[in-house]
């Protein structure tokens, strides 16, 4: 629905979304930092290039569907939706506050455009399967179903029930993106419950697997285009991302999985993001 932007423009949008995430989390005083920051490029690519959607008509009947399975990463979705024009950016600072449409974990009934309610892990892929199957029953071929999941989330048995189901039913109108950032609450994914050989696992369940740099917007756009061209199998995009991406002291540190920045940390993070890591010098410095 929107005019296509250059990769450079999309990168700047992703940077702004990261700043919004920091401000939202600092203001909320709770929430998850690492995942949303790491996913900013993927969400920018989705909302500003990949998805067929209409921010002014969130229930538009021809829209593509985006399910966010790891609901704790919803700040990136809120920030991206606001930038895309779903609602005013001022509302972002209501995150996690009483009466807000921006619940700590996404609630479909509160905010148009969310598509599903999630938080408890492991059930987004199944819901995406159900929607993809429903579209196929109705011979709808122009709508794609995307689902974003966390890698730690795939410890859940429900994920593998869905993985087997999607493979067995050749749900080729389904494209899953797993945020392979290698961290979860208790530590690294390989330390908590080893996921590797991750690619082989998905392939064994009947998926076409693509592996990309999930912080490279062009890679994300290309992989989704390739995914839509695969007609026999569901597509899993293993998107390798840097948790906490864009903020030096958060990157790769699993302690930032479930924590928000305090005021001082937020100031530091915003400075880093606004100067593109010191590449732009402020006139006030």
């Amino acid at each position: 629905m929107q005019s296509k932007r250059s990769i450079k423009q999309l990168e700047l949008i992703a940077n702004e979304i990261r700043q919004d995430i920091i401000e939202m989390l600092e203001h909320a005083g709770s929430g998850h930092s690492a995942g949303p920051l790491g996913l900013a490029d993927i969400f920018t690519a989705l909302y500003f290039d990949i998805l067929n959607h209409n921010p002014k008509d969130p229930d538009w009947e021809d829209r593509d569907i985006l399910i966010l399975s790891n609901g704790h990463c919803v700040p990136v979705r809120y920030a991206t939706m606001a930038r895309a024009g779903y609602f005013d950016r001022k509302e972002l600072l209501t995150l996690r506050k009483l009466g807000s449409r921006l619940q700590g974990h996404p609630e479909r009934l509160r905010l148009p455009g969310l598509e599903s309610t999630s938080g408890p892990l492991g059930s987004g892929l199944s819901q995406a399967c159900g929607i993809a199957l429903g579209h196929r029953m109705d011979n709808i071929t122009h709508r794609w179903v995307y689902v974003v999941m966390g890698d730690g989330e795939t410890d859940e048995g429900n994920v593998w029930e869905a993985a087997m189901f999607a493979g067995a039913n050749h749900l080729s109108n389904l494209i899953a993106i797993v945020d392979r950032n290698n961290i979860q609450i208790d530590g690294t994914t390989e330390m908590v419950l080893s996921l590797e050989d991750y690619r082989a696992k998905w392939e064994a369940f009947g998926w076409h697997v693509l592996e990309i740099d999930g912080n490279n917007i062009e890679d994300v756009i290309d992989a989704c285009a390739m995914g839509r061209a695969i007609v026999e199998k569901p597509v899993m995009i293993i998107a390798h991302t840097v948790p906490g991406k864009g903020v030096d002291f958060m990157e790769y540190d699993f302690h930032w999985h479930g924590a928000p920045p305090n005021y001082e940390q937020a100031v530091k993070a915003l400075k880093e993001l606004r100067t593109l890591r010191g590449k732009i010098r402020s006139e006030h410095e």
Partner: protein
Amino acid sequence: MSNHLDISNKDLPSEPIRKGFGRGLEKAGHVYPNVVAACADLTESTQMHLFKAAFPERFVEIGVAEQNLVTVASGLAAAGKIPFVSSYAAFSPGRNWEQIRTTICLNDRPVKIIGSHAGVSVGPDGATHQMLEDITLMRVLPNMVVIAPCDSVEAEKATIAMASDPRPNYMRLAREATPVITNQDTPFEIGKALVMEQGSDVTIIATGTMTYHALVAAEKLYKDGIEAEVIHLATIKPMDYETVLKSVHKTRAVVTAEEAQINGGLGGAIAELISENCPSPLIRIGMRDRFGESGDPNELLIHFGLDAEHIRMAAHTVVKKED
């Protein structure tokens, strides 16, 4: 309501309640093109095979994966379908409660969850398969409707009604043949209680398979000189408070009967209602905080006190307490 006082002498036909669901689903499939069905490897047992044969393209085999069963259904509902999903109640909603809570109730999707083979009357399969906590589990969920029909005829009507109900629904079915005590003319509406026998001495509130036993108990009580009002509560939630309270205000003595845990089940629900609104002597017939075991279905019902005689004795006790 027609007089059922002669119920134990009538040669009533008997049929598993789940059979009515199977017929109802097929009918609903003809009426509503967006009705679809999904099953977790128990298609014939849960009677979905009729729908599958009539609408193969609208039937989904999920495999033995109950978490996926209800979450795929949530997705199908998001795509505009009215999904009916079936398994044994011990597995669904036994295993997938959180998925039902988040992706169906909080997400408000009109998924129709069918839990078959509920209660101790499953018999020889034993405690693992005798689901007794499903009413409790489903009743506490906001947005969820909980239905336990008393026979196959009512189950058929309930299924058709569920297909056009916009809310998430849970319906509990039993395995064994149950006497058919309603007919095509008996009214059924989700959320409406049915006064099957009128009386002024004691209110017997029953659901599911136990409604038949409640009617038999009422007949015995009549011979004992006690006039029992029998309320069949097919919809446990949302409950028809008006009908229940009207009766309890009249009788001031209550017995509940269900083939489930009384804690949090129908008995729990009635205890909550009348203790707040019309405190009265109450005895709850049902499973008392224990599991079942293997055995012949009828033998088990008597063993666990889930029969007309226990309801009758309970009625005598509450009537005495009231005096």
